[in-house]
């Protein structure tokens, strides 16, 4: 029996990666859920918006690096991010002016917005590749680890190491900060309430003196900021490649929906559920069981519930199950 080593294995290969990945999904899902909550449509361009914000961040980061400025211990991208956010916000607002505003005026049904966002997605898609190309870009610099597996082994004397990357730490902290801020903003501030009112009943919000354009602008500002933050976190932790962001859209939507569309807390919980289920269900528990059972017994098989081939399927299966039990998500989202 060696509970500590078993725990170390689980932390290193399951908990920490899932927390970091979950945080990144959550940040993405926050943006999706926000746009859904306020403007009432599923924004399929959100993945590309993330990619765009990250791309600008990278461009600025390159400038900074050339000028010899760096974040020291922290990735330089963090310093560049505000500019990335600004540009992404401008793009989002421009898109709203040119595309979505028209449909708002027309009072088009949500599915028109949805398809509109699909078109916008195609457009961003090309735009991003025009500027930075389809290649991989390295986003993280600074110290790679808070502590490495080796450090940990030395420190603890355990057989199993735990590694904790700087970018994982940053992702988790940023996700917590963002969700707290967003929750506070929506529920406690007047502007936040006006946004909820607008999403609930646009006409009545108008009658209460809410300026719809302002609400929309704020929604896009927040969504674009969140998108850039999420994208940069993801890029720092893994890698930046435009194509990945499109692929990321599905788990992000799954997160937002498991949690309940329109609910910020739901987005975060959803993100973690998806991340944990992906890793936990396809995890091979061989070593863990080995540590937990007395003596030297080690199981023959991998003790894997399902092969990793099915990891995507697993997260979606869990999503379907959650929806069956709670048809509007864990935190009771809105319905169109």
């Amino acid at each position, binding site marked *: 029996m060696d509970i500590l080593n078993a725990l170390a*294995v689980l932390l*290193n*290969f*399951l908990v920490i*990666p*899932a927390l970091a*990945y979950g945080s990144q999904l959550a940040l993405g899902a926050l943006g999706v859920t926000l746009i859904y909550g306020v403007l009432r449509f599923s924004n399929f361009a959100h993945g590309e918006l993330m990619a765009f914000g990250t791309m600008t961040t990278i461009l600025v980061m390159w400038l900074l690096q050339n000028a010899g400025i760096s974040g020291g211990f922290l990735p330089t991208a963090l310093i560049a991010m505000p500019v990335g956010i600004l540009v992404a916000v401008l793009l989002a607002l421009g898109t709203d002016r040119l595309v979505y505003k028209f449909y708002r005026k027309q009072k088009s049904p949500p599915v028109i917005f949805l398809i509109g966002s699909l078109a916008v997605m195609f457009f961003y898609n090309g735009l991003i*590749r025009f500027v930075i*190309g*389809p*290649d*991989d870009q*390295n986003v993280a610099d600074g110290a*790679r*680890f808070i502590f*490495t*597996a*080796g450090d940990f082994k030395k420190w603890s004397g355990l057989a199993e*190491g735990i*590694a904790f*990357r700087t970018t994982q730490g940053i992702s988790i902290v940023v996700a917590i900060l963002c969700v707290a801020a967003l929750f506070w903003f929506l529920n406690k501030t007047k502007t936040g309430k006006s946004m909820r009112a607008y999403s609930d009943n646009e006409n009545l919000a108008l009658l209460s003196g809410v300026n719809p354009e302002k609400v929309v602008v704020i929604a896009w500002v927040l969504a674009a900021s969140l998108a850039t933050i999420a994208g940069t976190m*993801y890029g720092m932790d*893994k*890698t930046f*490649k435009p*194509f*990945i962001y499109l*692929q*990321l859209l599905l788990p992000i939507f799954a997160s937002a929906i498991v949690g309940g569309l329109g609910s910020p807390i739901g987005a975060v919980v959803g993100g973690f559920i998806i*991340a944990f289920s*992906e*890793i936990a269900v*396809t*995890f*091979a*528990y*061989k*070593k*863990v069981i080995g540590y937990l059972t007395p003596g030297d017994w080690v199981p023959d098989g*991998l003790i*894997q519930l399902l*092969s*990793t*081939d099915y*990891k*995507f399927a697993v997260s979606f299966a869990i999503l379907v199950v959650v929806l069956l039990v709670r048809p509007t998500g864990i935190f009771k989202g809105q319905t169109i």
Partner: protein
Amino acid sequence: ASHSPVKIGVILGFTGPIESLTPTMAASAELAMKEATDSGKFLDGAEVMPVRADSTCIDSAAASAAAERLITAEGVTAIMGADCSGVTGAILQNVARANGIVMISPSATSPALSDAEDDGLFFRTSPSDARQGDVLADVLIEKGVKSAALTYTNNDYGKGLSDSIQAAFEAKGGTITISAAHEDGKGDYSAEVGALAQAGGDVLIVAGYLDQGGKGVIQGALDAGAFETFVLPDGMVGDSLPAAIGAPLNGSYGTIAGSESEGADLFQKLATDAGVKTDTYAAESYDAAALILLAMQAAKSANSADFKDKVMDVANAPGEKILPGEIGKALEILAAGGEVDYVGATAVEFIGNGESGGSFRQILVDGEKITTEKYR
């Protein structure tokens, strides 16, 4: 004499899952075409004009339409492509065969394509999975590896290669602890790394692409301290991998098609001078284009029906060995009625049904560079 230019289609997935690989592949192929044009000896001084089209890698219907357009509207007489096996098969069956156009694919490795009806029109410069699996297993045994974890990109290339590695390695007495697929372009590989690490093994074999999931898995495994040595089949061999991962990759090894002829190094230099990266399948693309050009020259015609039988001739012995950068020389020899044996960047050797056999180069990552250990 002034001729109308010879048009050659370059059909690759410029958008879609492997969009980050294709620009280099296209540029490499076009390098060969430019070489031919510049030499002034191609079909009595004709110009070679590449025409690009998007295969999307996944959408067979769109790819077929693109090929249809190149052939029937743009008038290309041969195709360098396509890339992914699915679209390649579709183009071959629905467009190339119908119009009798030669296709040489740099990267479609699906064994299913070997048996497909092709009217002698289809060739590929990527090496055969079976052969590579065998070679790689030899390397592993030689290095004293007893057990290995294996991950592959979930497509016909990865699946085929991993099957053959596993079969060969186990036949030679090794153990594969786990064989787990990973999907390219998904970005997060924590689950795969977790499963692979738990299964354990002396080394991790990564049958993927170096700037796709393969890189992500290696990075994740290193960060978590799960594996230290990685085994890299051809899809993983390229300078950008050690450049991205850095020192921790030192000591990893692998195989890639190549012969003692220095073809690979020559191509590397050629490409660098022209400002083209040398990533996955760049060399194969260059070779595919070169073969088309040489076959045309040998047949003295840009017409597929005329030169399809010449592809084998120029690729294999007998004849003067031709390395990257020597296309002009080869054209001259052929124009004079001589014979060539195109070796190129990947030691092209066609066996039976238009597939590349040939030899392999065993590489070692040392000092954050790919170095050659020996040839097999």
